[in-house]
């Protein structure tokens, strides 16, 4: 049994301080005709500092909702969000959030979009731009600094978004299907880029995706959520694959297949049920 084994992480000096602790979280939305819709029911999740956690689940199961609660954009109906041992109030200042939708400011150039996070924190513009240039280089867009978002491809926009978030050095990185709209090839490249940047200073990551391959390839731990309403965590798997990893190569390793098969066998029913449900709900 590869999967059931507990992780022995070699880089955990701050073992006792968890980056994120969701305890007894319920998230509900008011419905238009009165009453409430419970998107997420009774959920407990702990993400250690420097840990990469992927959250997988069918469409519409409340994965994004969980991230929004962690970010402080959404207040859970019940339960508590703690971040670095402190209860969260307001926005989570430790968190950087890469959204699923296009969220760059379309009226700012790539470099201005990257620099803005520093500027609003009081860094002089010149320094902010200098650092932004470095970060654009890290995501491979040094030559595109003066382009506006509409002049960039979908993948390039995501890279700018990544630089925009990482330049502030957040201790927690929240990513909501960040590579969702991209084609398969670009997803692999973006995955490798993310792993590269992450391994430099290992932040805690919560990475939401519906792609099990992507989750296994990237993460230390894969969390599986059930279909909504009142979706909850139904699986928690440690991924024993060695780092550094390469997104394209890792898929040909036998260990990857073992892990994949095991998770898939355990969850096939639930996941398929979820997809069926979300198909039915869809107009």
């Amino acid at each position, binding site marked *: 049994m590869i999967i059931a084994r507990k992780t022995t992480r070699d880089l955990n000096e701050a073992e006792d301080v968890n980056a994120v602790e969701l305890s007894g979280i319920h998230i509900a939305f008011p419905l238009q005709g009165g009453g409430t819709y419970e998107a997420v029911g009774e959920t407990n999740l702990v993400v250690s500092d420097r840990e990469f956690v992927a959250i997988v689940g069918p469409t519409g199961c409340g994965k994004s909702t969980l991230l929004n609660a962690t970010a402080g954009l959404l207040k859970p109906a019940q339960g508590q969000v703690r971040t670095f041992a402190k209860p969260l109030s307001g926005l989570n200042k430790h968190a950087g959030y890469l959204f699923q*939708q296009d969220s760059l400011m379309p009226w700012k*150039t790539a470099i201005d979009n990257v620099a803005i996070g520093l500027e609003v924190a009081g860094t002089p513009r010149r320094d902010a731009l200098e650092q932004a240039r470095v970060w654009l280089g890290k995501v491979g867009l040094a030559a595109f600094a003066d382009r506006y*978002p509409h002049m960039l491809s979908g993948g390039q926009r995501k890279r700018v978004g990544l630089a925009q978030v990482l330049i502030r050095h957040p201790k927690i990185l929240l990513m909501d299907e960040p590579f969702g709209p991209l084609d398969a090839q670009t997803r692999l490249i973006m995955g490798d880029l993310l792993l590269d940047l992450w391994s430099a200073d290992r932040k805690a990551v919560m990475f939401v995706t519906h792609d099990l391959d992507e989750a296994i390839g990237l993460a230390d731990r894969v969390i599986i959520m059930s279909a909504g309403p009142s979706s909850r965590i139904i699986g928690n798997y440690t991924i024993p694959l060695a780092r550094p990893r390469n997104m394209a190569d890792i898929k040909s390793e036998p260990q990857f297949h073992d892990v994949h098969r095991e998770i898939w066998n355990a969850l096939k029913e639930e996941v398929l049920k979820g997809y069926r449900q979300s198909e039915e709900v869809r107009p």
Partner: protein
Amino acid sequence: MNRLTLISLQILVAVVTLVFWHIASTTTLIGNPKTISFFFAEPLAVGKRMVQWFMEGSIWYHLGITLTEAALAFIIGSLGGVIIGFWFARKPLLAAVFDPYVKAANALPRVVLAPIFALWLGLGIWSKVALGVTLVFFIVFFNVYQGVKEVSPAVLSNARMLGMNERQLLRHVYMPSALSWMFSSLHTSVGFAVVGAVVGEYLGSAAGLGYLIHEAESVFDVTGVFAGMFVLMGFVILVDWLVTLVENRLLVWRPRTSVISSR
């Protein structure tokens, strides 16, 4: 079709129209030239009148007055529209309370206000400016209001997560979004500023292009009316061209395809 052919064809349309107009008003080919030229004037006489105006220099004074009125109407109306639009968009209760009154005020055809403004503000430029302001204000107001309301929620959440406070959100998110909506209606609002000025002059004044046309009309000087119309047309085209230049500069971040060049 290449550019040269297009321009040649465009010029051809003007030439054919002018020649037809000239023939109709000077020969018996279509009807009695006296009658036709009484109602439609003669192109050569119209041209001569325009040349005369510009040679004498009297037209510059009238153009200057109309331009001043339109510019003031545009500036005051835009400022008011931006401020009130912002204020309403950020205070939904206020917007809800005033909603029927804003709609009612906007429903009123502005021309009927001209006599009241003349009464209040006299026959000088300010009654014309006021008329232009009532036209420009609502266009800018609605666009700014919409611009603030329609900021993409993803962009807004992202800006918040990047650490912006309310003031920074206003400056980096709401303001650019609102201004982009305002600039995209720049042609319309500038056009209405000119309309306000000219209509105001037409209804009662002592200077400006509207006054010039009205004066000519009151003595059945059709040549003067047409000459005034052509000068006005040229003036508006020039202003419109300047607006396009400004717009291209300000909205450089927008995809080219979404810039609508027609009015």
